């Protein structure tokens, strides 16, 4: 504990204090708007602190082998904070419309972000596990937050059982590795993992199962669509972006630090999972008429793409993962955001709900279209550069099979994304009943516009972002 630079830990401390502070304010004065503002302010402070740290030049510092404060982690902290703030803005009107008691949501939201931030800077099994669980437990409650809805409760419970089961896998795997190596921090594990051994192999395999579950990779993907559908849309956005993203980051860190990529079987397993995820995710999405399920299946495919970049394992690989995550964060938050910014009870769920939206709400539809184009990887959107990066990483490492699968999967993906866009363009019959969508929340629309512009900006001028990502020393 000695020699800890509190300066470096300050963002974490700040964020950890945030939920407690929010809880105290709730205890004193219970008001939705006040709580919301407080949460936003705290997150902005966290963000500012991250930026301050980013601008300092410092050596990567480990905190007791538990956490690594480096630019890589810091980059994702910033990403998580920005994503978090955006989702908060979306959540505000949504909660106003859909739940009676909204204040606790912000506490849970902040704890979830603590978990994510711990995950992205984790270099130790203990912090990995705790970060993951803080995130998960907050999510269980947030998924079920609209507890008047059957779907929500069902989703929360399903997620709880499955996530806890997968945590058990992860833990058992960690335990076996610990038993074999006597170490819990990634670096020490890496140095003693060299020789192949039954127990450590079993441990890694079980960890793979756990991680596969958390990322929703095929064949551990079954939960994804149910949870995406059951959770309130802002929470789904959080799961799709922050939760999965931070897990990807910790996976990258783990593989990189322990050098697990030396084991051919891990690469093979990952490759198989990536191929299966890309294909099955895209194929199953074809049948969906529910937008959230559609996005869920597409997220399975997207995680497959990310896995391709991770497998590539070259210098490019980490860059590609990082860029892809940024693009994916923006697009997926945007896509889920649009489902939830209408000032009405409930949310847009069915693809058919969008019919004719282009002619009644052109601006919103354009943003939605941009998000979808980004998700499918059409040029001039951030998603395209992301996908380009991933294909680049794959080709650079000679992973032709994966690159081709990615191509095929993208082509299938096109079909269902286009279907949604087509629906928006199909005019509604004149005598059809008026759509049940209410007014738009102004705040939501502003956030969506910002996201839409960001997608375009990072798609047309990716240079700056790439330069920033390049400036991160690779782990």
């Amino acid at each position: 504990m000695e020699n800890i630079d509190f300066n470096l830990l300050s963002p974490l401390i700040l964020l950890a204090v945030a939920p407690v502070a929010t809880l105290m304010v709730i205890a004193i004065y219970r008001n939705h708007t006040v709580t919301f503002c407080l949460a936003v302010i705290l997150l902005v402070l966290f963000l500012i602190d991250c930026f301050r740290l980013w601008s300092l030049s410092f050596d990567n510092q480990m905190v007791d082998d538990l956490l690594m404060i480096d630019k890589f982690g810091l980059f994702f902290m910033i990403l998580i904070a920005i994503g978090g703030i955006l989702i908060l803005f979306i959540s505000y009107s949504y909660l106003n419309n859909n739940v009676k008691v909204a204040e606790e949501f912000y506490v849970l939201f902040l704890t979830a972000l603590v978990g994510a931030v711990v995950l992205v800077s984790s270099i130790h099994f203990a912090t990995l596990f705790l970060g993951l669980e803080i995130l998960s437990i907050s999510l269980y409650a947030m998924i079920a937050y609209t507890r008047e809805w059957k779907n929500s409760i069902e989703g929360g419970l399903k997620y709880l059982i499955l996530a806890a089961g997968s945590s058990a896998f992860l833990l058992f795997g960690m335990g076996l590795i610990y038993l074999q190596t006597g170490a819990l921090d990634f670096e020490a594990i890496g140095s003693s993992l060299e020789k192949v051994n039954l127990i450590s192999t079993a441990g890694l395999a079980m960890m793979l199962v756990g991680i596969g579950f958390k990322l929703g990779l095929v064949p551990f993907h079954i939960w994804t669509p149910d949870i995406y559908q059951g959770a309130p849309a802002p929470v789904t956005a959080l799961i799709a972006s922050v939760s999965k993203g931070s897990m990807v980051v910790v996976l990258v860190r783990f593989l990189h630090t322990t050098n697990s990529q030396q084991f051919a079987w891990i690469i093979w397993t990952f490759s198989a999972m990536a191929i299966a995820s890309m294909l099955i995710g895209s194929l199953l999405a074809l049948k969906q008429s529910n937008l959230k399920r559609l996005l869920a299946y597409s997220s399975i495919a997207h995680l497959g793409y990310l896995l391709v970049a991770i497998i590539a394992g070259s210098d490019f690989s980490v860059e590609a993962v990082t860029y892809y995550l940024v693009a994916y964060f923006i697009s997926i938050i945007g896509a889920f955001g649009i489902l939830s910014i209408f000032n009405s009870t409930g949310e847009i769920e069915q693809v058919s709900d969008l019919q004719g939206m282009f002619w009644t709400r052109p601006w919103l539809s354009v943003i939605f279209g941009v998000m979808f184009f980004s998700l499918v990887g059409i040029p001039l959107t951030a998603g395209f550069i992301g996908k380009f990066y991933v294909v680049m990483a794959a080709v650079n490492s000679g992973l032709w099979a994966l690159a081709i699968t990615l191509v095929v999967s993208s082509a299938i993906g096109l079909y269902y994304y286009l279907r949604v866009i087509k629906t928006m363009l199909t005019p509604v019959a004149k005598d059809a009943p008026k759509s049940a969508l209410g007014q738009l929340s102004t705040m939501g629309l502003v956030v969506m516009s910002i996201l839409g512009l960001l997608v375009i900006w990072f798609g047309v001028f990716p240079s700056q972002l790439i330069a920033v990502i390049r400036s991160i020393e690779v782990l």
Partner: protein
Amino acid sequence: MILVALISTLVLGGLLAMLLEKWVTGSAKWVGLVASLLTMSLAGSLWIQYTGIDASTVSNGVFMVFKKPWIPEFGIEFHLEVDGLGLVMVMLTGFLGLVAVLISWSQVKHKEGFYYLNLLWTLAGIMGVFLAFDLFLFYLFWEVMLVPMYFLISIWGSANRIYAAYKFFIYTQIGGLLMLVALLGLYFLNGSSTGVYSFNYWDLIKTVLTTEQSMWLMWGFLIAFLIKLPVLPLHNWLPDAHGEAPTAGSVILAGLLLKTGAYGILRFVVPFFPDASQSIAMPAMILGVCGILYGAKLAFAQTDMKRLVAYTSVSHMGFVIIGIFAFNQLAWQGVIMQLVAHGLSTGALFVLAGILYQRTGTRDIRKYGGLWATVPRMGVAGLILVLASLGLPGLANFVAEFMTLAGTFTTTPIIAIAAAIGLIAAAVYSLRIMQKVFYGQDTASEKISDLSSMETLTIATVVFLLIYLGLNPGPITRTVEPSIKQLISQVETPDKGGFSYRTQVNNKSSSNGKH
């Protein structure tokens, strides 16, 4: 700057049309007209500039360069160049763009703002494809032209438009993504051997590849282009897309989009993979012949006017394939002639089909008949276009096909003979159109009006061009000659030709970059 203006006029014009339509109803078409006229005149000025340049100072036809770093991290530049080949395609794009806008004038009645946005952006994408000399940029334009085209088909198309739009998009997208993978393969192979990672055309052209590598990479590119062209087993999307698209969409599809495929093969596949492409020449030519005959056969069997014309495109593009894989200058000049002639004649045929459809409400040629009496101007136009399509001497298509076949004959006579049979087939299906539509008994209950003055003007211009180029193909063949020579030199002595050329271009681009 003209090069950028060519693209940006269309892009901005599209945006303006969309926005202005919101405030002033009916303004979109005017914006579209102005933008396309402006583009046409820019292309024209480029042409004039080109003719003014002494051919000896212009190495291989590249006479204007625009370069700006864009994503330096990947070695990506905003890099446009134009040479003779590009110039011809740009002219064609400008002209057919204008035709497309004019023909939409009275035919598009709803959501005009969005319509012209899509129309102009499609043209911008195509323009970009013909100008881009950075392969990333090329890929980008390649993809960008699809999305608005998809909307054009799926919103303003006819009954079965959604199916057609999907099919079109997915076919071309698969090709595009395969191209992306191959493109990256080339990029990394080149980068790892030279240490300079760049998407620059002139850098990548020098890539040293093993036979196997070049074979695989070539297929990646080739499939994308063959889908677009389209060659026989990959042609499936074309009749649907052409048949269901709105008139202007069909004009652009047949007149320009197909040409991007041929252009891509000439510009990229052949010089990048000279040996590999020569090694598959024979199968490719056989496919071309099959395409000619199969397209002709199916065209004969069609009852839907637009699908009929669409299948004739499959047939005509067979000549393009044959010509390209004949690997000689004459054939290639013929190919480019064919691109232009087919673009004009088929484009105009689609215009005519669109007008007929608009007047009669059907595209079933069995329901037409004896229209000559009621609409003589349309009849004359139809006759000339059909004759052009079947390759009557004196019209541009004849020159094109003749040159192609003559060029092919010197290398592979059998193919040329087989392809010539296609000309007879063309005569059969072409005359069937005339016979069904304009001759015979008039079955229509009500009279339809003849071509309006604007439509007459549009078609007359096309007809004039077809006749003019048929009598005097010089402007086209002369313009593309330097480019063709350069491309041929790549095939014959790939390494030497590439290097000597490159040095010249570098000198040129440094002096010309300031334009």
